[in-house]
C-alpha cells in the first residue's frame, strides 16, 4: 500500500532521511520507531506528500503523493502539533473538510463529536492540547481515509479517550482495510497496537519486520550455573547481542530459534534456566545498542 524506495531528503547540511526503503501492507498497522532526531517526522511528512524529497520514489496505492490531490483525498496525516485554520470551531473545520474531501461522512462526524463530548462551536485554539488532538482525530476519521499517517498520535490524550480512539481506528482496519503508519516513543502502547515495526536511526531504516516474528527470534536468557562453564566456549554456540553477569546469574540476549537455543543451553546443565520473549522496549534498546546508540551510565553532577 505504501512504498518508499531509496528516498533521500536533505535540509541544508542535515541529511534527514538517507536512502530509505520501506513497505507497508494494506490493512497493516506499521509502527515507526526510532531514536530522537532519527528522521521519523521528516519521513512521515514525505509519505504524506508535504515535503518534496530529493531523490527516490514514494507511492501510495501505486500512485505518487506529492502534489497529487487524487492520492491525498485518501491519505490523511495527523501531525504531532494539531493545526487548524485561524479562529475556527470544530464545525467550521468540518465545513472546510466537507468541501475538500469527497468521501466526507457527516453522520460519522456527528456521532464522534457527540461521543467524545466535544463542543462543536467552541474555538479550537481555546481548547487544551488533548482536546485539539481529539478534534483532529474526529475530523480525520470522518474523511474516511484509506491510509492514515500519524505522528505521535496518542500523546496528550487521557487513557479513556486513547482507548476509544484506538478502538475506532481498529474498526476501520477490520472493516475497510485501513492502513496505518504510526510513529511513537510509547513502545508499551505500540506493542499491542502494531503488527509490523520499522526502526529508524540516523535517517535510515535499521530493519522492518512483522512484530511477532521479531519477537520469536530474539530471546532473553536467564541462566545460573553451579559450575560456571568457560565463557567463550559457552557463548560461541549462541548469536549474542548482549551479555551481562549479575552475581551468579547470567543475562544474555540472543538471536535465534527457540528450538535450537533450548537444547544447546540445556547441554551445559544449568541450575536455573529461563527463556523469555523480549518486550518491544528491550528489542529497541538492544538493537540500537548494536549500532552504537546504547544506554550509558550517567551519574549527574
Amino acid at each position, binding site marked *: 500500500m505504501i512504498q518508499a524506495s531509496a528516498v533521500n531528503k536533505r535540509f541544508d547540511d542535515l541529511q534527514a532521511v538517507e536512502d530509505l526503503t520501506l513497505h507497508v501492507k494494506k*490493512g*497493516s*498497522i506499521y509502527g515507526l520507531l526510532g531514536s530522537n532526531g532519527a528522521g521519523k517526522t521528516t519521513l512521515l511528512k514525505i509519505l504524506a506528500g508535504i515535503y518534496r524529497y530529493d531523490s527516490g520514489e514514494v507511492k501510495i496505492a501505486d500512485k505518487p503523493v506529492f502534489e497529487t490531490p487524487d492520492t491525498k483525498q485518501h491519505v490523511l496525516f495527523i501531525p504531532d502539533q494539531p493545526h487548524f485554520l485561524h479562529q475556527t470551531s470544530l464545525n467550521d473545520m468540518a465545513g472546510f473538510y466537507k468541501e475538500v474531501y469527497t468521501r466526507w461522512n457527516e453522520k460519522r462526524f456527528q456521532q464522534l463529536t457527540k461521543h467524545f463530548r466535544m463542543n462543536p462551536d467552541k474555538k479550537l485554539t481555546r481548547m487544551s492540547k488533548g482536546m485539539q488532538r481529539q478534534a483532529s482525530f474526529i475530523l480525520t476519521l470522518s474523511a474516511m481515509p484509506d491510509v492514515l499517517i500519524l505522528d505521535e498520535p496518542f500523546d496528550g490524550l487521557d487513557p479513556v479517550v486513547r*482507548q476509544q480512539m*484506538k*478502538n475506532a481506528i*481498529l*474498526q476501520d*482496519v*477490520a*472493516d475497510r482495510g485501513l492502513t496505518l503508519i504510526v510513529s511513537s516513543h510509547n513502545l508499551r502502547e505500540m*506493542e*499491542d*497496537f*502494531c*503488527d509490523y515495526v520499522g526502526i529508524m536511526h540516523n535517517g535510515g531504516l535499521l530493519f522492518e519486520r512483522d512484530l*511477532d516474528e521479531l*519477537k520469536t527470534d530474539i530471546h532473553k536468557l536467564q541462566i545460573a550455573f553451579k559450575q560456571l562453564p568457560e565463557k567463550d566456549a559457552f557463548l560461541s554456540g549462541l548469536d549474542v547481542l548482549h551479555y551481562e553477569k549479575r552475581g551468579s546469574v547470567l543475562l544474555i540476549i540472543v538471536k535465534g530459534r527457540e528450538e535450537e537455543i533450548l537444547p544447546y543451553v540445556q547441554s551445559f546443565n544449568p541450575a536455573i534456566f529461563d527463556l*523469555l*520473549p*523480549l*518486550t518491544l522496549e528491550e528489542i529497541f534498546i538492544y538493537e540500537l545498542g548494536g549500532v552504537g546508540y546504547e544506554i550509558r551510565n550517567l551519574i549527574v553532577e
Partner: protein
Amino acid sequence: MFTLDTRSRVPIYEQLMDQLKTLMIKDLLQQDEQLPSVRNLAQELTINPNTIQKAYRELEREGFIYSVPGKGSFVAPLQNDGNGERLEMLRQDLEKIVSEFLFLGGSKDDLISLIQKIEVGEKEGEK
C-alpha cells in the same frame, strides 16, 4: 469473554490462542460452534484485527478450528492425535513444577492421589 494481559511478555495472539483452546477443551465452545468474528473481537478487545487473524490462522493450522469461506471460523471436532508438540511442552512445565513441589517437601503420594482425583473427575465429566 477474554481477558488479555497487555503487560505480559507473551504475545497477544498466543494469549488469545490459549484462551480459545481452554474454552474448547472445557467444552464452553462446542464442536461446530461459530467463533466471534475478527471484527467483533477487535472491537470488543481493542486489539489489532491482524493479531486476531493470526491467532485464528494458527488455531486452524493446529486443527482446533476450521473456516468456511464467507461465513467465519468454527470449532473443529476435538482430536487426540497430533498433540505431540503440546504434550511435550506441558510435560516440561510439569517437570519444573513437580521438582519445586518435591524440593519444598511435598510428598510423592500427594501428587499421585491428586492425579487420580483429576482423572476421576475427567471421566465423570464425560458421562
